[in-house]
């Protein structure tokens, strides 16, 4: 009789169709919305091209070692985050649980951001674009007041999309259009992750490659726009003085860390489906480099478009001034052009200063327009949408842009969901007879119901909280424990042997030094600096309040105490599992140490090395 093939008989574990799928999944997970809307912003405010120096230093000493560690760990132990860390040492099981909790929290709010992207996408099919004109007020005499005082783009985002409340304590109601889009987003996520990597592996071909196509199209189009060169020069002009500010180094370190999606457990899950003998070292270096190059590549079209927008704003300012001057002085049309505006102003100021003063001309400064830097949702939904209106064929550009954002976010969602899914399937609580489709369906349904709270009027304030507290600090803590756990509990020597078994060569001096000393130290410094900076500034948020006296400026408000308590809870919850599980195992061991037939932990660890 034929014996069944070894691999299937061993663990029945699903595997990737080919190596390319695995690499694309890792790259898709790492390359996300942050590469498009956070990296260019950081580059801009931290001295342009000079920011690349701390960025690459952080990559070499923090990003790549940690990435290699996670991929190697998952590949060796062939388990999701909870199982893998429990296998390294029962005391470190809390690290896996913490990763799992972070993945749950991030999945909840990340898909709501995708909901906003989808909402803009389906609205991009309208001619003219709904965010280009203000709606009229009730008696049709003028424009809607809120829209008129701010801009049409702002109005569409804050009122028509979010229907935002002026305060985080005012919950508002569920916005039905957002609930519909949220349902659609979770349905799409379910469709792609229905059978785990079997289905995400097929979907990733589209969602990981498509953004690059669109970025290239935007690159070519962006470079042809007027003012693109100003934007690019502004972005890349290095200002080496900014390197003296420690904030820049901290931002570089945190950006690398969050950009590579480390400590989520998703990378461990992905690599656990690999064949055991796979070169994880090359994979890690490749994924990290592709991620960084994508950030750089994405910042070029982003800044071309921002430069175009600034230039157009500057020209509009000039044109308005020119019209008022021409009207006042009854000069012939086309006598003052943008080029000779400054000479005319000087002339008129010397001859008729009181008339010029009476006009109350706004000073037009291109630098000021370029300085209006935005990151995050503001960049995508306010600045970029405004720039798109100014382009010809704006519908097509809007559709392309939002599909690209959706693909970027979706491929990152796959990693998050896999980080939740894989450990759940390995825990004994779910019996094997339940089909995978049902489990993923139940998970997606539960997440959808929980994420409904983000579709309330105050939802976007809560998403900011989740992003700042759940998606930042716990990751640093977990990564620190990951690194020290492998370096000092599992021991680097044994880990190097494992890596040698998998890749065929021993990790060289660079890996040894970074794993043992540099990366844990760096993570500790980053963590301490991050916490110090967070504590120093009072926890506040910017609220959109139409009744505010300085409207359309945002109102600075302080979080009420119960919200602060939730913030602390979000940051502490994943971290608390690390000592909790260790404590639990310690209790278990002391209770069992009275029983002589118990298995000592060293033998348990040896079993892992041999299998």
């Amino acid at each position, binding site marked *: 009789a034929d014996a069944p093939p070894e691999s299937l008989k061993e663990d029945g574990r699903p595997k990737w169709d080919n190596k390319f799928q695995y690499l694309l999944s890792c790259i898709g997970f790492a390359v996300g919305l942050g590469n498009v809307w956070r990296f260019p912003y950081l580059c801009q405010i931290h001295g342009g091209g000079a920011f690349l120096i701390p960025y690459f230093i952080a990559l070499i000493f923090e990003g790549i070692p940690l990435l290699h560690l996670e991929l190697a760990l998952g590949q060796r132990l062939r388990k999701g985050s909870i199982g893998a860390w429990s296998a390294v040492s029962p005391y470190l099981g809390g690290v896996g649980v913490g990763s799992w909790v972070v993945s749950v929290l991030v999945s909840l709010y990340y898909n709501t951001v995708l909901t906003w992207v989808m909402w803009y996408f*389906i609205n991009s099919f*309208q001619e003219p674009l709904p965010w280009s004109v203000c709606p009229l007020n009730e008696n049709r005499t003028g424009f809607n007041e809120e829209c008129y005082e701010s801009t049409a783009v702002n109005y569409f985002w804050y009122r028509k999309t979010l229907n935002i409340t002026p305060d985080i304590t005012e919950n508002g109601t569920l916005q039905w259009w957002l609930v519909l889009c949220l349902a659609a987003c979770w349905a799409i996520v379910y469709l792609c992750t229905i059978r785990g990597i079997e289905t995400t592996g097929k979907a990733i071909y589209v969602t990981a490659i498509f953004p690059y196509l669109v970025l290239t199209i935007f690159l070519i189009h962006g470079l042809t726009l007027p003012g693109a060169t100003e934007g690019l020069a502004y972005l890349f002009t290095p200002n080496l003085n900014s390197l003296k500010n420690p904030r820049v180094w901290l931002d570089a370190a945190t950006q690398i860390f969050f950009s590579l999606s480390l400590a989520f457990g998703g990378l461990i899950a992905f690599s656990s489906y690999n064949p055991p003998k796979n070169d994880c070292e090359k994979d890690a270096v490749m994924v990290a480099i592709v991620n960084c190059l994508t950030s750089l590549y994405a910042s070029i079209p982003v800044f071309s478009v921002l430069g175009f927008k600034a230039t157009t704003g500057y020209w509009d300012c000039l044109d308005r001034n020119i019209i008022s001057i021409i009207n006042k002085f009854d000069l012939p049309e086309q006598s003052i052009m943008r080029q000779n505006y400054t000479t005319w102003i000087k002339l008129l100021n010397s001859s008729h200063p009181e008339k010029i003063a009476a006009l109350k001309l706004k000073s037009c400064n291109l630098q000021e327009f370029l300085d209006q830097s935005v990151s995050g949702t503001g960049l995508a939904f306010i600045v970029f949408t405004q720039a798109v209106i100014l382009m010809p064929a704006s519908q097509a550009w809007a559709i392309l842009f939002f599909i690209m954002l959706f693909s970027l976010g979706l491929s990152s969602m796959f990693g998050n969901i896999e980080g939740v899914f894989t450990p759940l399937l390995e825990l004994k609580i779910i019996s094997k007879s339940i089909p995978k489709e049902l489990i993923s369906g139940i998970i997606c349904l539960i997440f959808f119901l929980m994420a409904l709270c983000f579709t309330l009027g105050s939802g976007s304030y809560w998403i900011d909280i989740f992003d700042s507290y759940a998606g930042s600090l716990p990751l640093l803590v977990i990564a620190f424990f990951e690194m020290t756990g492998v370096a000092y509990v599992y021991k680097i020597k044994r880990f190097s042997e494992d890596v040698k078994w998998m890749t065929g060569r021993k990790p060289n001096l660079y890996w040894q030094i970074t794993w043992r000393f540099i990366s844990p130290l760096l993570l500790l410094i980053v963590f301490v600096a991050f916490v110090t900076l967070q504590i120093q500034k009072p926890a506040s948020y910017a609220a959109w309040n139409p009744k505010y006296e300085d409207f359309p400026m945002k109102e600075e408000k302080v979080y009420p105490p119960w919200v602060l308590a939730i913030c602390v809870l979000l940051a502490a919850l994943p971290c608390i599992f690390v000592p909790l599980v260790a404590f639990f195992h310690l209790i278990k061991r002391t209770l069992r140490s009275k029983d002589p037939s118990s298995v000592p932990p060293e033998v348990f660890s040896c079993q892992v090395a041999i299998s």
Partner: protein
Amino acid sequence: YAWDANEEYLFKAMVAFAMRRYSSKSTTQISNVLLCNVTDRVSFWFVVTDSAKNVTTVPGSEVEAAIRMNRNRINGAFLLNDKTLQFLKISSTISPPVEPSTPVWLIVFGVVLCLTVAGIIFLIVQGIQRRKKKNKESSDTENLEEKCEVTVTIENGIPCETLDLKAGHINGVYAADDERFASL
């Protein structure tokens, strides 16, 4: 285009036309419209006189109302729009944005949702079919194995019990070979 006497003539004609339409009297002539203070900016003042009432000017409010009524015709005559041909003190009425009966986004959303649900149903059905096939196959192979055993027992003529493979006996010849290999 350059502003010259012909354009001025057209303007006077348009204002006269507007007055005629508004008041429905056919008495306003082009000569009733007077322009003054024409500047290079191309801005000027104009009045409309009423020849029936002894060269008095028509009240400004009437002229305003007439022009407002025929604004688009006047704009069209000059190939200009509200922004480029401005009548001071006559603000333009804003046309409301076009709103289709069904919001466009709802249609696109429906398409996206239908595609997704279709995909989900397809994959679920595929999964169920695969599982049914696997169950059938495994029960088939089980039957096949049983049949094989039965066949072997009958065909060979040698009952399986004599060839009891479960209780393995070590063949002495092979054991000697093993020792030879172990020394390497």
